[in-house]
């Protein structure tokens, strides 16, 4: 990647050749180039072929990565966006190609990820006739995108794509869908790459905390005895992690982050309380419960964080700094609500804030942190999943590493045991919780950071949901690593079955249905037993190398072998399914209901 090119202004070059009539498809690609795009994750089909043809004319500037499923392309674009902060671009054909992207768009919307999705559409003359591969994708996607366009005039393409970039990347970021009928892609027009945007209702850049609001925050901090910072994805989107670090350094306020905020503050810092919420640390949840001031920065009071809303932080005054006004007072009323870009607000705050005396509070928090750490069973004869993640963390923490995850227990354990020190090192489908996210997201990250180590820590259920992306890794030469924690179960659902449904197995065993485990009658999967499927054989079939382990002594050497491997590599760690993610605050419950064992 060439950062220089990325930084270039959005003004188009005044190349006289561009005064010639150009096809809609070429205008699309030129506009991508003008906006610094260097990679597109695109699966072709009838209605998007002209744009693919145009992309071949820009080979020097844009790399096209061919995923093996449109959803893989969408999540790869997210991996690219999440680890760079730049927009991720993906493209599909009409109909099923476009509907396969819907989950990626919904995912990007909930996690505020800047993404541009381009879909081909059937020609304008047949739109609305139930033509072959026609779906009204804009209608389908309205509520799962930040914005969406159906382009019906070739003259609008350059402007619309520019607007899409602007909308996706500014304010609270999000996904934008641009649907372009095939005949529009063919039409010729003299392009105007600098046509003014028509967005009278979209006003960004004005979200700035006022000096008065900053003073009010500082005054509340000065008066606080038990303050806690609760920081989320907004810290990362607004590139405010340095300012956040400075705020903590200046005030000594303990800080907990949401799963989206991991890496926004160094996880190994003494004042870091790790993640809060349902599977957050005991000490983070105790701190929030006992706080007299909760400083909520770039968060949305998600139910996985708050549990029972009325009981959440109910001894605290709440300061909520957030760029999206609709998040303010949506779930929890703030005593001081500030609609602002976080980077700006924190910088202003750091200039005047004074440290309160927190000696007593620090002592209390330190005791919780010492007494109730995350812990797992080290005596288990095999490898428990937490142990595998902990060892992977130790082996990679001092390397240039990016981590993605699927969804479920392994995701929560990674959030607990992997201490991210920097922002944008962590890719996690947090709001939507999309299984199958990890592998394609890793592909996108590796495209953006070809020299870095990119590891997908995955579960067997999740990995299987987008396993076809192994072909992408092999064929596109994207050597990502996967550490698979295989327990042959949908572990998180099993955990809920164990806790809330009398351990009745309801379609959560991922092996053959005639196995006793399928109905919960087994007594564990023994290491001698063959795990299904044979993931190593599958990986080898895709051209990967790999190794399967179940003995403790093999763990560290196998991790080293995976890291050292040249090409894409799968390390399968066979783990027991009986482990639960703890601590746990059940849904809609309070700290008093916290389960520790």
């Amino acid at each position, binding site marked *: 990647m060439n950062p220089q090119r990325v930084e270039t202004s959005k003004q188009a070059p005044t190349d006289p050749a561009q005064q010639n009539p150009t096809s809609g498809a070429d205008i699309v690609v030129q506009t991508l180039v003008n906006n610094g795009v260097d990679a597109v994750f695109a699966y072709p089909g009838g209605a998007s072929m002209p744009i693919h043809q145009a992309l071949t004319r820009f080979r020097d500037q844009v790399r096209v990565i061919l995923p093996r499923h449109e959803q893989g392309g969408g999540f790869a674009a997210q991996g690219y966006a999440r680890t760079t902060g730049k927009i991720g671009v993906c493209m599909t054909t009409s109909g099923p190609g476009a509907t396969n992207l819907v989950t990626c768009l919904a995912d990007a919307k909930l996690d505020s990820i800047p993404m541009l999705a381009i879909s081909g559409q059937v020609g304008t003359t047949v739109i609305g006739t139930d033509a072959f591969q026609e779906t009204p994708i*804009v*209608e389908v996607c*309205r*509520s799962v995108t*930040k*914005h*969406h366009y*159906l382009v019906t005039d070739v003259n609008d393409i350059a402007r619309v794509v520019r607007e899409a970039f602007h*909308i996706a990347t500014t304010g609270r970021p999000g996904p934008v869908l641009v649907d372009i009928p095939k005949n529009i892609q063919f039409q010729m027009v003299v392009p105007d790459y600098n046509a003014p945007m*028509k*967005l*009278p*209702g*979209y006003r960004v850049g004005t979200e700035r905390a006022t000096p008065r609001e900053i003073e009010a925050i500082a005054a509340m901090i000065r008066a606080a005895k038990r303050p806690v910072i609760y920081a989320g994805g907004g810290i990362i989107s607004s590139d405010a992690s340095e300012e956040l670090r400075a705020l903590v350094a200046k005030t000594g306020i303990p800080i907990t982050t949401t799963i989206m905020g991991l890496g926004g503050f160094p996880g190994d810092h003494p004042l870091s309380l790790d993640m809060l919420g349902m599977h957050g640390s005991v000490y983070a949840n105790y701190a929030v419960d006992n706080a007299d001031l909760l400083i909520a920065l770039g968060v949305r009071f998600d139910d996985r964080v708050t549990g029972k809303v009325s009981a959440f932080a109910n001894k605290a005054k709440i300061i909520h700094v957030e760029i*999206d*006004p*609709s998040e*303010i*007072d*949506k779930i929890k009323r703030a005593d001081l609500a500030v609609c602002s870009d976080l980077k700006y607000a924190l910088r202003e705050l750091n200039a005047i804030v004074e440290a309160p005396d927190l000696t007593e509070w620090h002592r209390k928090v330190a005791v919780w942190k010492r007494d109730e750490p995350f812990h797992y069973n080290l005596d288990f004869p095999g490898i428990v999943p937490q142990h595998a993640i902990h060892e992977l963390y130790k082996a990679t923490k001092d390397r240039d590493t990016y981590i993605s995850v699927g969804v479920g227990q392994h995701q929560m354990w990674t959030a607990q045991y992997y201490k991210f020190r920097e922002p944008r090192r962590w890719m996690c489908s947090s709001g939507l919780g999309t299984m199958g996210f990890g592998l394609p997201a890793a592909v996108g990250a590796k495209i953006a950071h070809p020299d870095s180590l990119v590891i997908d820590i995955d579960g067997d259920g999740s990995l299987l949901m987008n396993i076809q992306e192994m072909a992408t890794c092999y064929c596109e030469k994207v050597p990502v690593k996967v550490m698979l924690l295989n327990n042959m179960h949908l572990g998180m659902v099993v955990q809920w079955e164990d806790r809330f449904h009398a351990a009745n197995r309801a379609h959560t065993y991922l092996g053959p249905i005639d196995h006793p485990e399928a109905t919960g009658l087994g007594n564990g999967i023994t290491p001698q037993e063959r795990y299904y499927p044979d993931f190593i054989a599958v990986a080898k079939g895709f051209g990967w190398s790999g190794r399967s382990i179940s003995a403790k002594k093999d763990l560290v050497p196998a991790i080293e072998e995976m890291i050292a491997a040249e090409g894409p590599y799968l390390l399968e760690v066979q783990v027991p399914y009986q482990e639960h993610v703890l601590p746990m605050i059940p849904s809609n419950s309070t700290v008093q209901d916290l389960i520790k064992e």
Partner: protein
Amino acid sequence: MRHVLSALVQNVPGVLSHISGMLASRGYNIDSLVVGETEDPQLSRMTFVVVGDDNVLSQVRKQLEKIITVVQVDDISSHEHVERDLMLIKIAAPPDMRGKIGELADIFRGRIVDVSPDAVMVEISGPEKKIEAFIELMRPFGILELARTGRIAMVRGCQKDI
């Protein structure tokens, strides 16, 4: 609580679908939604009657403002304002009843716009309560058909901010 919100929106395809979809998916209770062009062909005006407490109102407003094609949202009902609803109502009216209906329509400043041997059609506009009172008065005659536009509203005077 009942609130009247007015939104200026870009006159582009799909904007009505987008807004009504947002309101439905978030479960807001909308009594009336009217959309029409404004003096500027680029813009349309939507008028909503929303039922809910202040929190609901504020969320509806913020969610509307978040939609890219929504240019401006005003809470009309927080100011002195005029609200109107237009109704066409067809009433069963044998010839001997026509006069009676005409008289009532006059009192309400409505007018008869169509007469057939067995029925009359009355056009009437005004605030919601007046329209509803007229409907009640017509009930005993036999209402054959009824169509209403829903609420439009405007703030009185010339407050430039609105």
